[in-house]
């Protein structure tokens, strides 16, 4: 009997305790900075104080004379390799060559016997810069006469996913267009038009652990201990940069102290490898927070949007143009732009739509992935306009959405390409709204908002996994998923245990080591449970098939009739434990059953983001908030988030993901913002960059799990953990507008809200005097 036929699931759907809890609680879990190796040197990085400058010379003679300094690396050391990398566009040198394009760009790196020596050596390096005009804003970078920051013809990266790359225009490194229908003709029928310009700030992912890498050259190649989310993509880029075969590059990933996208793709690894190559000894580089803040961040964005509808609130058109500040190098900007374009229309049945997204080079630190990218940028804008349409049509926001949302099976993209809708969004919105007391009486300055959106998720659906059932009945799962806090090791154990018919207590899930772990595309895009988990499920199913086969031979019955449960094979009155069964298979108490599982795209795959996604992650939440009109301070009273996950493999961990995403959403909406002065990050520490703390918690939080088994993953699962971050800022901005203060710029700081209240009062007074 297969697990699908077994009536009750034993492991899946159960709040099993985290497998890493004890190790982490006792302080024994190891992160990169905790792992020492013999002969290891410590690296420190000299970073540019200028956002745009030519480097006339770098003199490190005095640094090399310092006791304990082993090597100094500069751009001049890279002449024997093609030193440009970038998974989307190969536009970034490992270390600055002749010029710097952002404040914080590595210009030199020192390897020394300890960190204080390496840092002291940095102060002895003399760099002669010739500062150039800084394109530190989108406006400056997009100006007609702006100099081009990148003049080399763009070379696509190993994982560009961009389809056809057009000729670069000015400082636009990538553009994404989508749409359908005749927008001007359809708009002519509109009775309601809502139009506006909006700003989303640059924000920092703020994982508690900074970027860290140890690199060790040896006879076989290079080994990296790196806190990367995508070890196999880093492996490929390092092999490509330094001229290794893939197998010669080994990436070992221990626990990560959070990621949220900041550690996706290649970050500090090439620089660490280059420094270790120069030093001839293992080197570790651990960023300070101020350094990690200029290593990855979320794109700041400017957006213009127009939504039209008939008088009864039936949506007609949406037009969107937006510009993403990707910083000095593309990093994941093209993907973020494409995903934002996908999110821009919202999951509504528009008759016509057009979206233009531009990814723009600026002299600011590079922007990459951050949880729910694109969707977080867009949802608060689209939903603000939906609410404004509803207000003018005299519709309740929930009714407005129910009238216009896509239905399951309908196309999400306006042009009908890609995956159709795989969720019951109307049901989700109604549940979220109920969670904040929708329809109850409100005090003045209290508002409620609900928001709904979709995030193109899954990235490329390529994952392999293997499951090894040892002769004692214990099992090991090898899967490339990085454990960065989400609980992947626990969930993977539950999936394997369910499929094999044993307890997850008997299963160990290992961190990625590219030498032994089968390929997994990445840990991101909410893909681990859904896609890597499917690989684990298939590998475990193959192990189970071997067990049934052996028992079938033993009892001379059809293998399909053998049931696996509680660590035993059973048929009729017969039963045998897994260890005894494996001993029967091999004729002694040894051997093992080891099987693989594979997930790959069905149909063609050109690697273009225009295809897919593997599934749509649902972003639905509701918020009740109160504004203090005297100060502009917003208090979040109630939140509800909906995790529409198809099947919750571990419901407790699903809720925990939504808790974390919800709180990051409050940070993004209310106070997180990176400030730049002439391209230089000025609030580069936790003293000045404000993240949510305990007092910022909403008064009441409701977390709702929806399980319609409509996902492509194991038991109908689909990814979670990002949606709430897109949905909460949107619901919060809608709630603030409902309380009377529509906002066009995040974060909703007290000053910004207070100024908007004064502006609205002034407009009101002017209108009244005009009316008189």
């Amino acid at each position, binding site marked *: 009997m297969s697990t699908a036929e077994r009536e009750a699931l034993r492991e899946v759907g159960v709040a099993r305790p985290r497998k890493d809890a004890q190790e982490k*609680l006792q302080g024994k879990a190891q992160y990169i900075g905790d792992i020492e190796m013999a002969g290891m040197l410590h690296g420190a990085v000299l970073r540019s104080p200028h956002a745009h400058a030519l480097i006339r010379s770098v003199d490190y003679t005095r640094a090399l004379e310092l006791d304990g300094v082993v090597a100094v690396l500069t751009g001049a050391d890279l002449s024997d390799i093609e030193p440009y990398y970038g998974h989307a566009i190969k536009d970034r040198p490992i270390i600055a060559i002749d010029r710097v394009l952002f404040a914080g760009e590595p210009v030199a790196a020192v390897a020394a016997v300890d960190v204080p020596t390496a840092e002291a050596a940095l102060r002895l390096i003399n760099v002669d810069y010739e500062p150039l005009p800084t394109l530190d804003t989108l406006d400056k970078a997009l100006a007609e006469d702006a100099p081009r920051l990148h003049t080399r013809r763009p070379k696509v990266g190993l994982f560009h996913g961009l389809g056809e790359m057009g000729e670069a225009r000015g400082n636009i490194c990538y553009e994404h267009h989508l749409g359908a229908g005749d927008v001007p003709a359809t708009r002519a029928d509109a009775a309601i038009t809502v139009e506006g310009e909006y700003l989303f700030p640059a924000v920092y992912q703020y994982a508690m652990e900074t970027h860290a890498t140890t690199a060790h050259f040896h006879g076989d190649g290079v080994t990296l201990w790196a806190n990367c989310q995508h070890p196999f993509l880093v492996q490929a880029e390092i092999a490509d940069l330094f001229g290794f075969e893939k197998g010669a590059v080994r990436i070992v990933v221990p626990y990560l102290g959070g990621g949220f996208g900041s550690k996706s793709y290649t970050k500090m690894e090439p620089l660490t490898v280059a420094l270790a190559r120069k030093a001839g000894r293992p080197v570790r580089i651990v960023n300070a927070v101020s350094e990690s803040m200029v290593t990855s961040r979320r794109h700041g964005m400017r957006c213009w949007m127009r939504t039209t509808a008939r008088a009864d609130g039936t949506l007609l058109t949406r037009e969107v143009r937006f510009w993403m500040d990707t910083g000095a190098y593309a990093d994941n900007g093209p993907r973020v732009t494409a995903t934002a374009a996908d999110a821009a229309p919202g999951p509504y049945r528009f008759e016509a739509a057009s979206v233009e997204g531009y990814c723009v080079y600026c002299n600011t630190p590079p922007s990459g992935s951050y949880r729910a990218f694109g969707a977080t940028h867009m949802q608060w804008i689209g939903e603000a306009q939906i609410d404004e349409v509803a207000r003018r049509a005299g519709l309740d926001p929930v009714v407005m959405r129910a009238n216009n949302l896509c239905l399951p099976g309908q196309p999400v993209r306006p042009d009908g390409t890609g995956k159709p809708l795989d969720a019951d969004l109307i049901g989700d919105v109604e549940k979220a709204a109920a969670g904040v007391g929708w329809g109850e009486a409100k005090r003045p300055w209290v508002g409620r908002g609900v928001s709904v959106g979709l995030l193109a998720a899954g990235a490329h659906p390529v994952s392999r996994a293997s499951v090894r059932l040892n002769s004692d009945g214990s099992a090991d799962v090898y899967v490339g998923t990085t454990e960065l806090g989400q609980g992947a090791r626990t969930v993977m154990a539950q999936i394997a245990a369910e499929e094999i018919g044993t307890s997850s207590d008997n299963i160990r899930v290992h961190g990625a080591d590219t030498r032994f772990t089968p390929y997994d595309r990445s840990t991101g895009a909410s893909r681990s449970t859904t896609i890597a988990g499917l690989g684990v499920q298939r590998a475990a199913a193959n192990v189970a098939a071997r067990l049934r086969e052996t028992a079938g031979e033993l009892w001379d019955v059809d293998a399909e009739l053998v049931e696996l449960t509680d660590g035993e094979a059973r048929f009729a009155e017969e039963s045998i434990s897994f260890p005894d069964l494996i001993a029967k298979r091999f004729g002694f108490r040894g051997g093992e059953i080891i099987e693989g599982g594979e997930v790959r795209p069905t149909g063609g795959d050109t690697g273009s983001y225009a295809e897919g996604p593997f599934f749509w992650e649902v972003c639905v939440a509701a918020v009740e908030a109160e504004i203090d009109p005297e100060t502009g301070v917003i208090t979040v009273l109630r939140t509800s988030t909906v995790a529409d996950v198809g099947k919750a493999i571990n419901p407790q961990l699903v809720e925990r993901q939504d808790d974390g995403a919800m709180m990051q959403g409050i940070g993004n909406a209310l106070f997180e913002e990176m400030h730049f002065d002439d391209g230089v990050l000025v609030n580069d520490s936790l003293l000045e960059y404000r993240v949510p703390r*305990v007092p910022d918690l909403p008064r009441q939080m409701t977390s709702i799990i929806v399980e319609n088994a409509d996902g492509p993953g194991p038991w109908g699962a689909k990814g979670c953990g990002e949606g709430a971050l897109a949905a909460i800022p949107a619901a919060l901005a809608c709630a603030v507008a409902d309380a009377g203060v529509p906002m066009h710029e995040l974060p909703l700081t007290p000053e910004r809200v207070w100024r908007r209240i004064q502006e609205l009062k002034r407009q009101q007074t002017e209108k009244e005097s005009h009316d008189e």
Partner: protein
Amino acid sequence: MDIRLTVNGREVIETVEPHVLLLDFLRERLDLKGAKRSCDVQVCGTCTVLVDNMPVSACTYLAVDADGRDVMTIEGFAEQPEFTLFEQAFTRHAAVQCGYCTGGILLTLKSLRDAGELRTEDDIRHGLDSNVCRCTGYRAILEAARELIR
């Protein structure tokens, strides 16, 4: 400078430069890696250790200032009988995710509890304002901490 202190119940006598931070002393000299470096400015609490049962940020506390004092890190707390209660509560509520901030949070709660200042919900909320966690959104941590009220 020579310093003599107790770390996790064991006497330690070492010579340190006056500028060495307690965090580096614990991590590098004593190989106690449970206290984590993060913000470096005494805000996030990942480096929290107890000095004479008071939580301090080891990132901004000099090793020489610990001379003659009693220091406890998460490794030491984990050996104590009462730790089981904390471990069970945090495991039951899945109040640990990436784990980087967790040691600091457990030590902060232990210090409050030992001082008789973990009596109410307000005590928990006020006490944990000194620790940043980016993963959990705090809700699970508060739920676990409620089980530790006394």
